């Protein structure tokens, strides 16, 4: 049960019950859909980037406590940051969850030692690393964000 309390920290339950930045943005903000094909969770991310800065982000769709709170925490964390900083944050976040280059999680590998302080509230999701199946929940919003950033970069 100790692990379970690690997973469902208060801050996570709070972001699950009251997700920040819910909704959709109007164009020219771009819209990206993400699926967790294994469980049916869907996320719809709206993303506005101006001059290399994420000026606004909104999150729609529905998911479990982990994916919802992760999306909420992410939206709060990236707003106002430069795209480069966001990408760095993403890498740090995945490092915390021991997600490898190919997106796979290897439980035999220690989590990358990351600067948890640099993650701020996002560090609350640290407990997910002990629940390999839930890592996809925690990374869904981030992968969808990365896809959005790639689309914008490709334009």
């Amino acid at each position, binding site marked *: *049960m100790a692990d379970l309390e690690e997973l469902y920290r208060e801050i996570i*339950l709070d972001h699950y019950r009251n997700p920040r930045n819910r909704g959709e943005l109007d164009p020219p903000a771009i819209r990206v859909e993400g699926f967790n094909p294994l469980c*049916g969770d869907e996320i719809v991310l709206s993303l506005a980037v101006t001059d290399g800065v994420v000026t606004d982000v909104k999150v729609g769709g529905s998911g479990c*406590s982990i994916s919802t709170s992760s999306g909420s925490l992410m939206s709060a964390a990236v707003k106002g940051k430069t795209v480069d900083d966001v990408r760095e944050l993403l890498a740090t976040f995945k490092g915390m969850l021991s997600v490898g280059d190919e997106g796979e999680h290897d439980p035999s590998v220690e989590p990358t030692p990351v600067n948890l302080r640099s993650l701020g509230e996002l560090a609350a999701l640290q407990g997910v690393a002990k629940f390999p199946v839930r890592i996809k929940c925690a990374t869904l919003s981030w992968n969808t964000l990365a896809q959005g950033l790639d689309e914008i970069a490709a334009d």
Partner: protein
Amino acid sequence: MAAVTSLDVATIRKDFPLLAQVRDGKRITYLDSGASALPPHQVVAAMATYQETTHANVHRGVYATAERATHLYEQARIDVGRFIGAAKPASEIVFTKNCTEAFNLLAQSWGLANLGPNSAIVLTEMEHHANIVPWLQLQTRLGFEIRYLSVAEDRTLDLSNLDQLLDGAALLSVTATSNVLGTVNPIAELASAAHAAGALIAVDGAQAVPHASIDVSALDLDFLAFSPHKVYGPTGIGVLYAKAEHLDAMPPFLGGGGMIKDVRLDGFLAADGPQRFEAGTPPIAEAVGLSAALAYVSGLGLDAIHAHHRSLTTYALSAIASTFGDTVKVQGPADGPNRAGVLSLTVDGVHAHDIAQVLDTYGVCVRPGHHCAKPLMRRLGVNATARASFGIYNDRDDIDLLVEALQATVTMFA
């Protein structure tokens, strides 16, 4: 002798070492047989014995071991055929890699030969992706129409427009039991309606075959697919039954060794019978395991299994209703003879993932998600359920623990 009406669960459990394990002070309460049943020791031992004492490739060897392996493999085909009441057990069973491949074979062989831009087939809103996606793929190629029987408010199939949907259709492909709702569909009635309309009927038996005896001859089914790993058999094998008159007319699907009469550099001649659809080395050890699994469940008695699951279902539905009122919903029809032991739970404000996660801390294994039935999920207006499904090793204690764990979940997320 009196009809057997109950299973001796305590004795049965001894055949399943996994259930005797204790992790973190808890034993495992396995309520996920709808996803995959546990294989009993008898199945595991049959496979191991085959692998250690009789393994050889089949069909082409002359030496005694190869002959024996071939015999075991072909005997498994006959065992499966008999188990489902096939008229020609040696000629109407194709071994595939899983139930899903069986539907792909049906679509890409029978479908490709019999459907065209002006054809139509009928599916239902409650189908598993295995009985939807292969048809969508073929539709992209051939352009036929796919019609869907809808799911009524009481979570049974809405049959009010059945004849209309069947009109001009070439095939009705329908699940015998919903893997989400536990709805048991009226297959006999659907088969006669299909045939009356000049259509064939294919049945997804993945959830039904483990729970009640299905007789393809009595039901007059044209095709039946099922999953050995859900009937206490191994992974790596699937079954397609096709009435000989259809099978014999179906063009090949996968190509390679074993499915040919002759190959030249510019063409090939396909073999006859089930072999035509079994390209390459087949799942030999798995066929042996499947035989053992069917012997195992036949030994318990399909009627006894059915009665056992019915009784657990009634107990569970009433325990959940009386404990939780409207807080925990069971997505599916009310209790009754056509209600199978598949309980899809939803709790407002608590996601299925989180239910399953908390239940795991009690050792209770249920499966969260869309259960490969996304169209049905949309129809139900949920994006996931936490599904508990029963097997021969479950008893009322398991359900009591499920209820207790659900209570903790509800409290935690309140």
